[in-house]
Protein backbone atom coordinates (compact mmCIF):
# COMPACT_ATOMS: atom_id res chain seq x y z
CA UNK A 1 0.00 0.00 0.00
CA UNK A 2 1.31 3.46 -0.94
CA UNK A 3 0.69 5.63 2.14
CA UNK A 4 -1.12 8.87 1.36
CA UNK A 5 -1.17 10.11 4.94
CA UNK A 6 -0.03 9.03 8.38
CA UNK A 7 -0.57 10.28 11.91
CA UNK A 8 0.63 9.01 15.28
CA UNK A 9 -0.60 10.73 18.43
CA UNK A 10 -1.40 9.92 22.06
CA UNK A 11 -4.66 7.99 22.32
CA UNK A 12 -6.59 10.85 23.89
CA UNK A 13 -9.93 12.40 23.12
CA UNK A 14 -8.36 15.80 22.37
CA UNK A 15 -6.68 14.17 19.36
CA UNK A 16 -9.88 12.64 17.95
CA UNK A 17 -10.55 15.40 15.44
CA UNK A 18 -6.96 15.45 14.13
CA UNK A 19 -7.18 11.69 13.58
CA UNK A 20 -10.58 11.81 11.89
CA UNK A 21 -9.61 14.70 9.64
CA UNK A 22 -6.47 12.94 8.51
CA UNK A 23 -8.74 10.14 7.29
CA UNK A 24 -11.45 12.34 5.75
CA UNK A 25 -8.71 14.45 4.12
CA UNK A 26 -7.58 11.31 2.26
CA UNK A 27 -11.13 10.53 1.29
CA UNK A 28 -11.69 14.05 -0.04
CA UNK A 29 -8.55 13.82 -2.11
CA UNK A 30 -9.90 10.60 -3.67
CA UNK A 31 -13.01 12.47 -4.74
CA UNK A 32 -15.62 10.59 -2.70
CA UNK A 33 -18.93 12.41 -2.48
CA UNK A 34 -20.19 14.20 0.64
CA UNK A 35 -22.39 11.30 1.73
CA UNK A 36 -19.60 8.73 1.51
CA UNK A 37 -17.20 11.07 3.30
CA UNK A 38 -19.75 11.36 6.10
CA UNK A 39 -19.86 7.57 6.40
CA UNK A 40 -16.07 7.36 6.48
CA UNK A 41 -16.04 10.14 9.10
CA UNK A 42 -18.46 8.15 11.29
CA UNK A 43 -16.64 4.83 10.86
CA UNK A 44 -13.33 6.47 11.70
CA UNK A 45 -14.79 8.01 14.85
CA UNK A 46 -16.23 4.70 16.01
CA UNK A 47 -12.96 2.82 15.59
CA UNK A 48 -10.85 5.59 17.12
CA UNK A 49 -13.08 6.24 20.12
CA UNK A 50 -12.78 2.56 21.06
CA UNK A 51 -9.00 2.76 21.00
CA UNK A 52 -9.06 5.98 23.00
CA UNK A 53 -11.55 4.63 25.55
CA UNK A 54 -10.42 1.06 26.03
CA UNK A 55 -7.10 0.08 24.42
CA UNK A 56 -4.91 1.24 27.30
CA UNK A 57 -7.24 0.73 30.28
CA UNK A 58 -6.70 3.86 32.33
CA UNK A 59 -3.12 4.32 31.08
CA UNK A 60 -1.36 6.23 28.34
CA UNK A 61 -0.62 4.94 24.86
CA UNK A 62 -0.57 5.94 21.22
CA UNK A 63 -2.73 5.38 18.19
CA UNK A 64 -1.58 5.41 14.56
CA UNK A 65 -3.49 5.85 11.36
CA UNK A 66 -2.23 5.14 7.86
CA UNK A 67 -4.38 5.81 4.80
CA UNK A 68 -3.47 4.67 1.35
CA UNK A 69 -4.58 3.12 -1.88
CA UNK A 70 -4.29 -0.63 -2.40
CA UNK A 71 -3.38 -2.27 -5.71
CA UNK A 72 -6.98 -2.02 -6.89
CA UNK A 73 -7.05 1.73 -6.20
CA UNK A 74 -9.43 1.41 -3.25
CA UNK A 75 -8.91 3.49 -0.11
CA UNK A 76 -7.55 1.55 2.87
CA UNK A 77 -7.57 3.00 6.36
CA UNK A 78 -5.45 1.23 8.98
CA UNK A 79 -5.89 2.12 12.65
CA UNK A 80 -3.50 0.54 15.12
CA UNK A 81 -2.60 0.61 18.81
CA UNK A 82 -0.22 -1.26 21.08
CA UNK A 83 -2.80 -2.10 23.74
CA UNK A 84 -3.77 -5.56 24.94
CA UNK A 85 -4.98 -7.89 22.15
CA UNK A 86 -8.66 -7.30 21.48
CA UNK A 87 -10.59 -8.36 18.43
CA UNK A 88 -13.30 -5.79 18.17
CA UNK A 89 -15.00 -7.67 15.33
CA UNK A 90 -15.60 -10.75 17.47
CA UNK A 91 -18.41 -9.12 19.44
CA UNK A 92 -22.06 -10.06 19.08
CA UNK A 93 -24.37 -7.83 17.06
CA UNK A 94 -26.03 -5.23 19.24
CA UNK A 95 -29.74 -5.02 19.93
CA UNK A 96 -31.40 -2.85 17.27
CA UNK A 97 -35.00 -4.01 17.62
CA UNK A 98 -36.23 -4.11 21.21
CA UNK A 99 -38.37 -1.41 22.81
CA UNK A 100 -37.03 1.47 24.89
CA UNK A 101 -37.13 -0.30 28.27
CA UNK A 102 -35.26 -3.35 27.02
CA UNK A 103 -32.89 -1.51 24.70
CA UNK A 104 -29.28 -1.84 25.90
CA UNK A 105 -27.10 1.25 25.83
CA UNK A 106 -23.89 0.92 23.78
CA UNK A 107 -22.35 -1.51 21.34
CA UNK A 108 -23.52 0.35 18.22
CA UNK A 109 -20.16 1.82 17.18
CA UNK A 110 -18.51 -1.22 15.64
CA UNK A 111 -21.83 -2.33 14.18
CA UNK A 112 -22.24 0.95 12.28
CA UNK A 113 -18.68 0.76 10.98
CA UNK A 114 -19.23 -2.79 9.72
CA UNK A 115 -22.47 -1.77 8.00
CA UNK A 116 -20.99 1.29 6.32
CA UNK A 117 -17.50 0.24 5.23
CA UNK A 118 -16.91 -2.19 2.39
CA UNK A 119 -14.63 -4.52 4.28
CA UNK A 120 -13.41 -4.46 7.87
CA UNK A 121 -10.60 -6.63 9.20
CA UNK A 122 -8.88 -7.14 12.52
CA UNK A 123 -5.35 -8.52 12.77
CA UNK A 124 -2.87 -8.78 15.61
CA UNK A 125 0.50 -7.89 14.06
CA UNK A 126 3.44 -8.26 16.41
CA UNK A 127 2.40 -6.31 19.49
CA UNK A 128 -0.28 -4.24 17.79
CA UNK A 129 -4.03 -4.37 17.21
CA UNK A 130 -4.60 -3.42 13.57
CA UNK A 131 -8.08 -2.60 12.34
CA UNK A 132 -8.36 -1.99 8.60
CA UNK A 133 -11.33 -0.80 6.65
CA UNK A 134 -11.61 -0.48 2.93
CA UNK A 135 -13.69 1.95 0.88
CA UNK A 136 -14.23 0.90 -2.71
CA UNK A 137 -13.34 3.61 -5.16
CA UNK A 138 -16.24 5.43 -6.70
CA UNK A 139 -17.36 4.15 -10.03
CA UNK A 140 -17.08 6.68 -12.84
Amino acid sequence: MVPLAEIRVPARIENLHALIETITGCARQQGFDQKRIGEIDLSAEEALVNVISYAYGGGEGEVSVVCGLDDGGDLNVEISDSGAPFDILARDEPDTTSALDERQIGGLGIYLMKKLMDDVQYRRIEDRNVLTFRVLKKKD
Partner: protein
Amino acid sequence: MEINTKKTGNILVVSLKGRMDAVSSPGFDGNLLEWTTAGENNFIIDLSALEYISSAGLRSLLSAAKQIKARDGKLMLSGLSGAVQEVFKLSGFYSIFQIFASETEALQSV
Protein backbone atom coordinates in the same frame (compact mmCIF):
# COMPACT_ATOMS: atom_id res chain seq x y z
CA MET B 1 -22.20 21.15 18.68
CA GLU B 2 -24.34 24.14 19.45
CA ILE B 3 -27.23 23.65 21.88
CA ASN B 4 -30.07 26.18 21.95
CA THR B 5 -33.24 26.02 24.02
CA LYS B 6 -36.56 27.79 24.10
CA LYS B 7 -39.60 27.17 26.30
CA THR B 8 -43.00 26.72 24.59
CA GLY B 9 -45.78 26.10 27.10
CA ASN B 10 -44.52 23.34 29.37
CA ILE B 11 -42.20 21.96 26.71
CA LEU B 12 -38.48 22.65 26.44
CA VAL B 13 -37.49 22.75 22.77
CA VAL B 14 -33.80 21.88 22.42
CA SER B 15 -32.13 22.48 19.06
CA LEU B 16 -28.89 20.67 18.30
CA LYS B 17 -26.61 21.99 15.59
CA GLY B 18 -23.42 20.60 14.07
CA ARG B 19 -21.69 17.41 15.23
CA MET B 20 -22.96 15.19 18.03
CA ASP B 21 -19.89 13.04 18.58
CA ALA B 22 -17.75 11.61 21.38
CA VAL B 23 -16.34 15.09 22.04
CA SER B 24 -19.63 16.99 22.17
CA SER B 25 -22.12 14.46 23.58
CA PRO B 26 -20.95 14.71 27.21
CA GLY B 27 -21.94 18.40 27.08
CA PHE B 28 -25.46 17.40 26.09
CA ASP B 29 -25.61 14.88 28.99
CA GLY B 30 -24.58 17.64 31.37
CA ASN B 31 -27.23 19.99 30.02
CA LEU B 32 -29.94 17.36 30.32
CA LEU B 33 -29.08 16.90 33.96
CA GLU B 34 -29.43 20.65 34.52
CA TRP B 35 -32.79 20.78 32.74
CA THR B 36 -34.30 17.86 34.63
CA THR B 37 -32.90 19.16 37.92
CA ALA B 38 -34.60 22.48 37.15
CA GLY B 39 -37.87 20.52 36.80
CA GLU B 40 -38.21 20.25 33.03
CA ASN B 41 -40.16 17.14 32.11
CA ASN B 42 -41.27 17.49 28.48
CA PHE B 43 -38.80 17.83 25.65
CA ILE B 44 -38.67 18.23 21.91
CA ILE B 45 -35.15 17.70 20.64
CA ASP B 46 -34.96 19.21 17.18
CA LEU B 47 -32.25 17.70 15.00
CA SER B 48 -32.89 19.67 11.81
CA ALA B 49 -29.55 21.46 12.06
CA LEU B 50 -27.65 18.39 13.22
CA GLU B 51 -25.25 17.33 10.47
CA TYR B 52 -23.63 14.35 12.10
CA ILE B 53 -24.33 11.85 14.85
CA SER B 54 -22.12 8.96 15.94
CA SER B 55 -22.79 6.14 18.39
CA ALA B 56 -21.72 8.46 21.21
CA GLY B 57 -24.61 10.75 20.27
CA LEU B 58 -27.03 7.82 20.00
CA ARG B 59 -25.94 6.72 23.46
CA SER B 60 -26.74 10.18 24.87
CA LEU B 61 -30.17 10.27 23.22
CA LEU B 62 -31.06 6.75 24.37
CA SER B 63 -29.93 7.51 27.88
CA ALA B 64 -31.98 10.74 27.81
CA ALA B 65 -35.06 8.79 26.69
CA LYS B 66 -34.64 6.31 29.54
CA GLN B 67 -34.17 9.04 32.14
CA ILE B 68 -37.13 11.07 30.93
CA LYS B 69 -39.36 8.01 30.80
CA ALA B 70 -38.34 7.09 34.36
CA ARG B 71 -39.56 10.56 35.43
CA ASP B 72 -42.85 10.09 33.53
CA GLY B 73 -41.81 12.85 31.18
CA LYS B 74 -42.17 13.12 27.43
CA LEU B 75 -39.45 13.16 24.76
CA MET B 76 -40.07 13.82 21.08
CA LEU B 77 -37.49 14.13 18.31
CA SER B 78 -37.94 16.20 15.17
CA GLY B 79 -36.31 17.24 11.92
CA LEU B 80 -34.04 14.26 11.21
CA SER B 81 -32.43 14.33 7.78
CA GLY B 82 -29.48 13.08 5.77
CA ALA B 83 -26.78 11.30 7.71
CA VAL B 84 -28.70 11.52 10.99
CA GLN B 85 -31.68 9.76 9.44
CA GLU B 86 -29.43 7.06 7.98
CA VAL B 87 -27.74 6.37 11.33
CA PHE B 88 -31.13 6.24 13.10
CA LYS B 89 -32.38 3.70 10.56
CA LEU B 90 -29.31 1.47 10.82
CA SER B 91 -29.54 1.53 14.62
CA GLY B 92 -33.25 0.80 14.81
CA PHE B 93 -33.83 4.07 16.67
CA TYR B 94 -37.03 4.91 14.79
CA SER B 95 -38.90 2.30 16.82
CA ILE B 96 -37.90 3.65 20.23
CA PHE B 97 -38.49 7.38 19.81
CA GLN B 98 -41.53 9.45 18.95
CA ILE B 99 -40.26 11.15 15.79
CA PHE B 100 -41.84 14.07 13.91
CA ALA B 101 -40.97 15.69 10.61
CA SER B 102 -40.62 19.12 12.18
CA GLU B 103 -40.63 20.91 15.51
CA THR B 104 -44.03 22.40 14.55
CA GLU B 105 -45.57 18.98 14.01
CA ALA B 106 -44.15 17.75 17.30
CA LEU B 107 -45.68 20.76 19.08
CA GLN B 108 -49.05 20.22 17.39
CA SER B 109 -49.16 16.61 18.56
CA VAL B 110 -49.46 17.56 22.24
